[in-house]
């Protein structure tokens, strides 16, 4: 079983192991789906642990910040916002997962109810679809590790400077956001993140191209123009326009008196 980099942080280490296994599986090709499935289950379980950790912390600290909350009387909205912002899932929408979401949106497109349904289902059984799912999970694993690191930093800060908690939920929230932002910016520039993002992008593109190939096969069977054929027409039109432009330019140059040509050199002292 693959093991990732050990930090002593149980959450980070578990994620790291899951990612290392994922990377091994990717290297081994689609035949290695079984260890991946295990890694993804583990990833889900660790994600849930991250969430529980955030909830437990919030519950404990929330009582200190606003004891009335125990009776449901004075739970501030800032506190609720803090609770939400501490949710590890928020890291996925904090810029980090933007590329992931964009790719998923672009890849999946509108869900047609009839046209090409069979083909869409077929393509979801292919290695490209599996690879996309795996790449997305690996990407989330990196994000979860970032959350775990940020949370460790933040927890340490609240232990080192307990006065933060007495400043109220908004101050605590601002502190968490600062820690989270710094960690995300660092993570986004890390080799592991960039590699995972690249894998996700290529997996999304491969899936999209595979799907197109299957849909085009269906189109050809039904004598419907394909995307590739339309692209060829666009290329032909573009090339023709360039030729017309070139021709017009040449005719205009020939019609111009010779003295209007030439590029003066104007180096200024």
């Amino acid at each position, binding site marked *: 079983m693959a093991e990732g980099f050990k930090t002593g942080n149980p959450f980070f280490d578990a994620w790291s192991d899951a990612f290392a296994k994922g990377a091994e599986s990717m290297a081994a090709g689609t035949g290695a789906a079984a260890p991946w499935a295990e890694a993804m289950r583990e990833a889900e379980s660790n994600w849930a642990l991250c969430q529980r950790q955030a909830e437990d912390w919030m519950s*404990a*600290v929330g*009582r*200190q*910040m*606003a*004891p*009335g909350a125990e009776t449901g009387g*004075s*739970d*501030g*909205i*800032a*506190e609720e*916002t803090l609770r939400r*912002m501490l949710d590890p899932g*928020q890291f996925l*929408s*904090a*810029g*980090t997962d*933007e*590329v992931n*979401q*964009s*790719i998923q949106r*672009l890849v999946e497109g509108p869900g047609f109810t009839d046209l090409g349904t069979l083909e869409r289902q077929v393509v979801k059984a292919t290695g490209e679809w599996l690879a996309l799912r795996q790449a997305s999970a690996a990407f989330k694993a990196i994000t979860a590790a970032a959350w775990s690191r940020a949370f460790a930093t933040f927890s340490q800060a609240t232990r080192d400077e*307990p*006065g933060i*908690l*007495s*400043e*109220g*939920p908004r101050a605590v929230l601002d502190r968490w*956001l600062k820690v989270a*932002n710094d960690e*995300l*910016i660092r993570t986004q*520039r890390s080799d592991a993140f*960039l*590699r995972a*993002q*690249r894998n996700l*992008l*290529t997996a999304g*593109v491969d899936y*999209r*191209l595979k799907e197109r190939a299957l849909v085009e096969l269906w189109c050809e069977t039904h004598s419907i123009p394909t995307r590739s054929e339309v*692209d060829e027409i*666009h*290329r032909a*039109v573009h*090339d023709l326009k*360039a030729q017309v432009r070139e021709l017009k330019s040449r005719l205009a140059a020939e019609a111009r008196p010779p003295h209007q040509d030439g*590029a*003066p*050199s*104007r*180096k*200024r002292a």
Partner: protein
Amino acid sequence: MSEQTYRPDQAWRESLEFGAGFARSAEALGRISEMDVDVGATPKTEIMRLEKVTLSRYTPLEGVEVRTGPVLIVYGLVGRYTMADLQEDRSLVRNLLGRGVDLYLVEWGNPTRADQFLGMEDYTDWFLGDCVDRICAEAGVDQVTLLGICEGGTFSTIYAARHPEKVKNLILTITPIDFHADADDPDVTHGILNVWARSLGAQDIDRLIDAFGNLPGEILGSVFESLTPVRNLTKYNLDLHDIASDDERLMNFLRMEKWLADRPSHPGTAARQWLIDLYKENRLVKGTFELGGEAVDLGRLTMPVLNVFALRDHIIPPPCAKALGPLVGTDDYTELALPGGHVGVYVSSKSQGIVGDTVFDWLVERQ
């Protein structure tokens, strides 16, 4: 854990303040329509249309004498020119018009998959070239000053290097020239687009564009959003809450959001050149970037050059812009370093006056 010092009454007060703030946000947003969030509103008249590309001339402000030759604003294909004309009091366009600059604008429109084969040669030699020719005819001159913004600055630089006889002055703002110089920036948070592009293989970029025809605006938008990751979480709750009671700040916020969300697709061929030839392979400064079979020679930039960049620019790190200095073929090269970030050059009230005055004074000296 510390002892509790945050009292229940404080929590109540904060709770009520938050509640009132959110109510104000909802009320304020409810009375603002999309039409109210007007960006790029300075009056202009379209004078030419080429495919989806339009050339317009800004209407001179009433009572302001035109004191310069024609200046053409060239934005890139990444995003929209409206950043330079976000609102009346934060508009480089209005600033320059107010000082008497004769201003034109080229807009690239909304490229679709039908435009996927348009390359940088098309955008510079064809579209930009035709715009320059038309302005010359309109204004009765034989040269135009180019004012390039970001990727539009790179286009302007390439056009000026290929057709120096048609460019009177070259003004660049936040323009990347050396795409690997982010490594020289001491601020490691700068240059995420450089880092992202280099993390991809050329084949990855080719296949991405093969799959979508163009570079989807959403992909670039998501890379830009990752510049301020946590802000994406807070801007529609905390930030909105904080500014909801201030109409002016709220409208500024909404205008900026409108600009950020407006990300057209980048035509495929030009995107391959932008990401592979320039961002990955850095061919422009190496002298190996070719258009129409000819290498673009920055030494042919013989016209006066004003290079404006921002010291805290996360998108175009200052060294990427400053790299132009030693490469131009003119001694009349001026730099203006501004204290803010990428967008701040256009929307910061502090930068506005500096940019407007500097560009205008520099231009007037070179008429």
